């Protein structure tokens, strides 16, 4: 499970490596540090918080700074790619990406079944090689004798066991 999480994480960061505007920008991503300073506002992807406290990319390259300057002018002058780049500077994941979910559940369920199956094998081996014989009173013959005794004793004659035995015909009703 940890392995699947690590795998998913690795895939995500690999994916974004391509999508972000430049490798310099990637290095500047605020979340790509080993130690997160919790005493300052952090970026977060939350559906209920559309505008995070800080932008996703804070250390802008020269090209990105130029784009930010262009943003101060009329937005009708921006190309679609520029608008998208501005969005990605401020936000890591779009709402659709946040809602996406992953296929991790399949890995988890598969792992659960594998381990259940393995446990089943262990239990079966134990039954065969560890447990001793079952008591002789469970043999067919012994059970027949026991049943006959119960009938003779009239066990539960009103509604239960012996009630089901036909004493005239000597058979079960």
């Amino acid at each position: 499970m940890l392995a699947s999480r690590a795998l998913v994480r690795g895939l995500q960061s690999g994916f974004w490596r391509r999508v972000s505007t430049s490798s310099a920008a990637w290095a500047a991503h605020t979340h790509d540090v080993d130690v997160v300073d919790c005493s300052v506002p952090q970026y977060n992807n939350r559906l209920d918080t559309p505008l995070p406290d800080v932008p996703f990319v804070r250390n802008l390259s020269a090209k990105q700074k130029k784009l930010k300057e262009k943003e101060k002018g009329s937005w009708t002058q921006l190309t679609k790619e520029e608008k998208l780049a501005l969005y990605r500077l401020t936000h890591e994941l779009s709402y659709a990406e946040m809602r996406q979910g992953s296929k991790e559940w399949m890995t988890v369920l598969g792992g659960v079944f594998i381990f259940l199956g393995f446990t089943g094998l262990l239990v079966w081996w134990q039954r065969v090689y560890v447990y001793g014989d079952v008591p002789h009173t469970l043999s067919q013959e012994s059970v027949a004798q026991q049943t006959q005794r119960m009938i003779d004793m009239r066990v539960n004659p009103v509604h239960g066991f012996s009630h089901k035995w036909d004493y005239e015909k000597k058979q079960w009703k």
Partner: protein
Amino acid sequence: CHPPGMRKPVSRTMFRAALQLSVSGARSLTRSRPQYTASVAARSYSHGKQETDEEFDARWVTYFSKPDIDAWELRKGMNTLIGYDLVPEPKILDAALRACRRLNDLASAIRILEAVKDKSGPHKEIYPYVLQELQPTLNELGIPTPEELGIDKA
């Protein structure tokens, strides 16, 4: 054109697409609005005057219309508004988008549109209606919709 089942919106009776009917929703049923809308104030008091929809809207429009609004206030306002159990009226969103323009923040403007769509939940007709109402502003300011940028799909 308006989504099917809705009357032509009159500004003062308009549509607060709440996610559930509340006690004051009984009022809305008598006005034969579509089932998903209700007159829901953001707060229900046990005493004191209940804020009307119009007062609520006016308050938020005023908030975002502040000429020298700062980035923090925009974020705080927007995040608070999205926290309420309703989809904001187009006029509030219009004021918020114009605040983004004053702050030179295109990304936030796009994010607001995304948040509105997300907030509508299963009521798929709300978002197209909001976009329709905001289209003049979007064209004027040059704000793309998330669909135009392709970020509505993961």
